[in-house]
């Protein structure tokens, strides 16, 4: 039960973080919402900017170019091996900022909570968010909470927006890939997606695989220090490596040629994909990046990546080629050729 007794901020009873649930009133703007913010969000995420208690955070940015990126996070289940929606929402947006070669400065977080969502779960995932934010050194400086009726949400959605500053001389963009460039990945592919699938009811397989969810800005900083002239960086999230490479090919107006044997995939991920009829190249990652750089820079960049814990399994997997069709092709491990197309629809487990 809630502990009774006045609290210092004028709330009569503390939030019941053990047995309580999100109610419509928690989003209505009144004292219940103020209490939720104080006793849950503020408690975990506390920092001087958030403590301003205004509807916005005020700060003086370092000089230079800034980047802004936003991502909605919707995931089932909310807690999964290797992370939860809270840490994911921090990592996902930090990564999108970092993919411009930027140093992330601040995050903003908007929550859409479903009526009935256990406060204990909310507390746990906001704590996880706070831990991820602290360990990344990127504070959450402003936020918002909405509550929707039961049946009109799915527990918790989190939209995070990140702001970062781009070092001078860095000009990383998806349209910079050039024929001859090297294509690198920072580690094994498909871990996140398989970790999520392993939790899905019905599919129910057990695996040691954990989500790779991680903040990549520190790895990126090391990479940019080693090769300031990186052409493209992108995190192969939804749609997997295949879709990310097709995006980059389309944006840059080039083709790519991969070597299947060079693409790092964990055996358990490969096995899960065989079982479900999925292709690991289309499975989501949340702590990996694709880098494209001039062929001459590739060895230096690969060495810098491998020297960082988040890039230990980094590999050079192919090269950029001229191709008016912008095809991503692959030499199969077996010695043949195939196209690696965009993802079509959602990747669904299949029996055929």
């Amino acid at each position, binding site marked *: 039960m809630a502990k009774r007794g006045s609290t210092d901020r004028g709330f009569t009873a503390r939030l019941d973080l053990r047995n309580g649930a999100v109610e419509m009133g928690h989003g209505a703007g009144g004292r219940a919402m103020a209490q939720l913010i104080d006793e849950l969000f503020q408690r975990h995420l506390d920092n001087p900017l958030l403590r301003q208690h205004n509807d916005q955070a005020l700060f003086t940015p370092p000089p230079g170019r800034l980047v802004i990126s936003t991502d909605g996070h919707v995931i089932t289940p909310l807690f999964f091996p290797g992370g939860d929606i809270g840490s994911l929402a921090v990592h996902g947006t930090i990564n999108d900022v970092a993919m411009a070669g930027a140093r992330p400065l601040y995050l903003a977080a908007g929550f859409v909570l479903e009526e009935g969502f256990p406060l204990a779960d909310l507390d746990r995932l906001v704590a996880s968010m706070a831990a991820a934010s602290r360990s990344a050194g990127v504070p959450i400086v402003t936020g918002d909470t909405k509550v929707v009726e039961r049946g009109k949400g799915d527990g918790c959605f989190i939209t995070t927006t990140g702001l970062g500053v781009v070092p001078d001389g860095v000009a990383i963009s998806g349209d910079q890939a050039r024929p001859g460039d090297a294509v690198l990945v920072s580690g094994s592919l498909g871990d996140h997606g398989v970790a999520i699938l392993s939790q899905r009811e019905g599919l129910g*397989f057990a695996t040691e695989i954990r989500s790779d969810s991680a903040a990549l800005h520190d790895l990126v900083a090391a990479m940019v220090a080693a090769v300031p002239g990186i052409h493209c960086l992108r995190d192969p999230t939804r749609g997997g490596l295949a879709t990310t490479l097709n995006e980059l090919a389309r944006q840059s107006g080039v083709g790519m040629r991969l070597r299947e044997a060079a693409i790092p995939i964990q055996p*358990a991920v490969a096995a899960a994909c065989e079982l479900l009829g999925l292709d690991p190249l289309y499975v989501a990652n949340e702590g990996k990046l694709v880098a494209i750089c001039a062929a001459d820079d590739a060895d230096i960049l690969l060495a810098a990546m491998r020297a960082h814990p988040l890039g230990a399994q980094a590999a050079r997997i192919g090269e950029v080629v001229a191709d008016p069709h912008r095809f991503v092709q692959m030499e199969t491990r077996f010695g043949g050729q195939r196209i690696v197309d965009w993802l079509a629809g959602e990747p669904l487990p299949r029996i055929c």
Partner: protein
Amino acid sequence: MCLAIPAQIIAIEADGRSATVALGGIHKAVSLALIEDAVVGDYVLLHVGYALSKISAEEAERTLALMVEAGLFETAPAAPDAR
């Protein structure tokens, strides 16, 4: 059609109707309702959650040996341009 994959039985439930199989580091519960005399250690062909048949290690070896033999017979120097 018919995505099916070999997996090894690592445990059989007391009722004999279901089992746990392992493949490439993952574990999965499967139904044994469609096969007979399965024992722990057997490899089975897994399809939509059911073991469809056992895989014969001897036959697999024999098939591989045949493949090796076929390939050895035609030696590398004569490798065709496939395109």
